[in-house]
């Protein structure tokens, strides 16, 4: 009893400047066990603390409290407390104990999901990520949780703010897998297929020593999105891990079959292939995407016609794209013109469609700006690349490994290369 009160007093006293806080941190670490043992009666003490000033102490108490069992009626109060804490806590203080903060956020997420009010968790978790990450390139453990809540609450747009950051620093490979997988799904939801492909591609080609379920599911979606977006599934790039290359296709047979059928360009075959595997697609929750694959075949066929024809009757379009009636063809063409996928005009009197070239002349100010921004981005990226390259070539761990491996192959190499490097 006393210890908690004493601790609260300490927290109140020692939250002023960084040195005091680090002293407090060690005190808190020592009393971690005693806090846990009294988890259920910690809640009242929280009110004595100010989450913005005493963030670290508050965090420890909150973490201990949330690690204990939560009663139903306490839940909503708990949620409010956490939201308030996340909103007002000081970033410097919580970064001293990232594990604790993550664990609080996780239990918060579990609560939100249990109560089936995912949407209430979206905003707080976004704030939490921003406070926890040291830079926007840092992937925290909270990223996948946040995206999951976005997915569950269908707040895809909210997820974008996080997804648009480039991620380079990763703590846990599993976080990355999940982050990219959920990110891919959010992008699919928003029909940003090229972004979705990028995310799923990262999962599929990530280095892995053993196959995991996330990669398998991601590959299924990767196949479907590739078909929708590009009309074909690219083969594995050579940097894909051997495990993935060998095994992924075995686990995703219906999808590879589908891709093969798609490649033949025959509508009826594709449809039968879908029908035979429809249960599997349904079980994977991919049926919607599969249907989109089917309709993308029409589009692709029509798009191909624009490359070869200047004018073509709707009747012929229907024939070439394997649509049933000219009316249906007209509808598809119309929709594609609307979406900016083809450039064409329909002459309803003769039932003819004339296709035009892309009117983009690359002369407008917007285009120049767009190009300029791409150039800037790429320059920044290549600068980053060379700095990382420099960094790696000076990394002692890397050099010793390279030196050791060389020795095995060629004695001469070992003699000259590592010694030279080791002296510097």
């Amino acid at each position, binding site marked *: 009893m006393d210890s908690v009160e004493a601790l609260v007093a300490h927290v109140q006293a020692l939250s002023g400047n960084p040195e005091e806080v680090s002293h407090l941190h060690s005190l808190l670490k020592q009393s971690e066990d005693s806090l846990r043992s009294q988890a259920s009666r910690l809640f009242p003490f929280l009110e004595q603390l100010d989450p913005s000033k005493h963030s670290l102490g508050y965090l420890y108490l909150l973490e201990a409290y949330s690690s204990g069992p939560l009663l139903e009626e306490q839940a909503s109060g708990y949620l409010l407390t956490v939201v308030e804490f996340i909103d007002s806590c000081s970033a410097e203080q919580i970064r001293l104990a990232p594990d604790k903060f993550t664990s609080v956020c996780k239990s918060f997420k579990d609560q939100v999901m249990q109560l089936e009010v995912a949407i209430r968790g979206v905003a707080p978790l976004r704030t939490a990520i921003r406070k926890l990450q040291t830079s926007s390139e840092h992937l925290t453990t909270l990223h996948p949780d946040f995206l999951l809540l976005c997915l569950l609450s269908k707040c895809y747009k909210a997820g974008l703010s996080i997804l648009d950051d480039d991620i380079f620093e*990763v703590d846990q490979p599993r976080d990355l897998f999940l982050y990219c997988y959920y990110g891919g799904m959010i992008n699919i939801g928003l029909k940003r297929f090229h972004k979705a492909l990028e995310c799923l591609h990262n999962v599929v080609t990530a280095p892995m020593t053993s196959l995991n379920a996330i990669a398998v599911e991601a590959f299924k979606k990767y196949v479907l999105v590739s078909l929708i977006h590009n009309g074909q599934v690219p083969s594995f790039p050579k940097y894909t891990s051997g495990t993935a290359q060998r095994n992924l296709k075995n686990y995703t047979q219906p999808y590879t079959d589908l891709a093969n059928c798609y490649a033949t360009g025959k509508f009826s075959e594709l449809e039968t292939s879908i029908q035979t595997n429809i249960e599997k697609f349904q079980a994977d929750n991919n049926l919607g995407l599969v249907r989109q694959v089917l309709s993308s075949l029409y589009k692709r066929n029509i798009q191909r016609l624009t490359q070869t024809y200047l004018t073509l009757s709707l009747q012929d379009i229907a024939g070439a794209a394997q649509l049933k009636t000219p009316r249906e063809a007209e509808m598809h063409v119309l929709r594609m013109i609307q979406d900016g996928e083809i450039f064409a005009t329909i002459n309803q009197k003769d039932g003819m469609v004339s296709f035009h070239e892309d009117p983009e002349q690359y002369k407008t100010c917007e285009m120049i700006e767009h190009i300029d921004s791409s150039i800037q*981005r790429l320059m920044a990226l*290549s600068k980053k*690349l060379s700095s990382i390259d420099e960094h*790696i070539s000076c990394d002692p*761990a890397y050099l010793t490994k390279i030196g050791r491996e060389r020795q095995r192959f060629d004695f001469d190499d070992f003699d000259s290369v590592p010694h030279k490097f080791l002296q510097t």
Partner: protein
Amino acid sequence: MDGDDEGVTGPMGDEPMFSNGGGDGQQQRGSKAVMGGEQMDVEAYGSLYTGRTKVIRLLFIADRCGNEGMQLEALRLAYDEIKKGEDSQLYREVASKIAGRLGPQYDLDQAWADGIDRRAEQRKDKLENELNGYKTNLIKESIRMGYNDLGDFYYAHGQLGDAFKNYVRTRDYCTTSKHIIHMCLNVILVSIELGQFMHVSNYVSKAEQTPDMLDAVTVAKLRCAAGLAYLEAKKYKLAARKFLETGPELGNNYTEVIAPQDVATYGGLCALSSFDRSELKSKVIDNINFRNFLELVPEVRELIHDFYASHYASCLEYLENLKPNLLLDIHLHDHVETLYTQIRHKAIIQYTHPFISVDLHTMASAFKTGVAGLEKELEALITDNQIQARIDSHNKILYARHADQRNTTFQRVLQTGVEFERDVRAMLLRANLIKHEYNQRAATRKI
């Protein structure tokens, strides 16, 4: 000769059949086999060849022609030819294929076959004994001869695998380049019949590497063999080059493999399918050596000239007429379709090339097809990016499409930028993961 009498009556009876279904084939067969004149096509064709290839080619025709009269004629000729040789296995096969349809003269002659077998057994023992004797005496030249004889023996009896092995074994005992050439030619001969064209090209290059000057006939033979090997490997351009390089010395010296008429046909078709206009002019039409070959097969000569002169309709007509014959050719049959499509595509591409706009009706009549069919073909070629044009299906006009260099460059640049960005980011991410994993493994090792 009884056989000849029978042969005359046989085809005579089949005459009506030919005038109906095989009329085309008969006419070209006759023209292809110039020596045969107006005689029966199969016989004339057969007379171009000697040795085993004659039998094999005739049997191939019998298998493929799908016309009983022609089949029987081919089988009859094959039967006669085999009886001159010693291959009892093949003899039995042919006799069973004839199945008594050519009368008693062409039934299985069991006694003859058994006699051949018995003699073969004895001869084989004798040759093997001799070879063993040479081997113990270690006389290089004799061992080579021994192996060579054994190879010849196996070849004559149709045991091609063994023949091949024995011919190859002589290689270790070759002392002069003449021996090497001899060995190579033997191996090539067997390999062609075995259908192992990898060996053919190997041994052609071996023969060509011999230090001594080769005589013109051998060079021509090697060129033909190399051409065949490339043809089988579907490298039509290289095949065309080899056939075009074949010297006129070939004459009738290589009839156990190829007739000069074949050189013209193979070379001409391969050249048409793979050469561009200027190459066609300089390497085929102006090639004096090859002109001699072309004279033997006027159709091929005409169609090449027609192609060059852009008379596509008559060129394609010639091709169409030649087709049934070529399908019966033992080497070309697999490639006829590919070569024909390539030639046709080339013709279409060449036709459209100089124009800004082409009326599809005119073009269709030039190619003797319908507008709809032509449109489909053009569509495929445009999709393949072989013709830069677009079809105005409403007015049935083909418009050349001049790609705007500036726009495509912009497009490509932006595309490349996007790809680069994506790849680099993915790469950095992977590098980080690997680094992380490495660090983690190092950390666990320390603990």
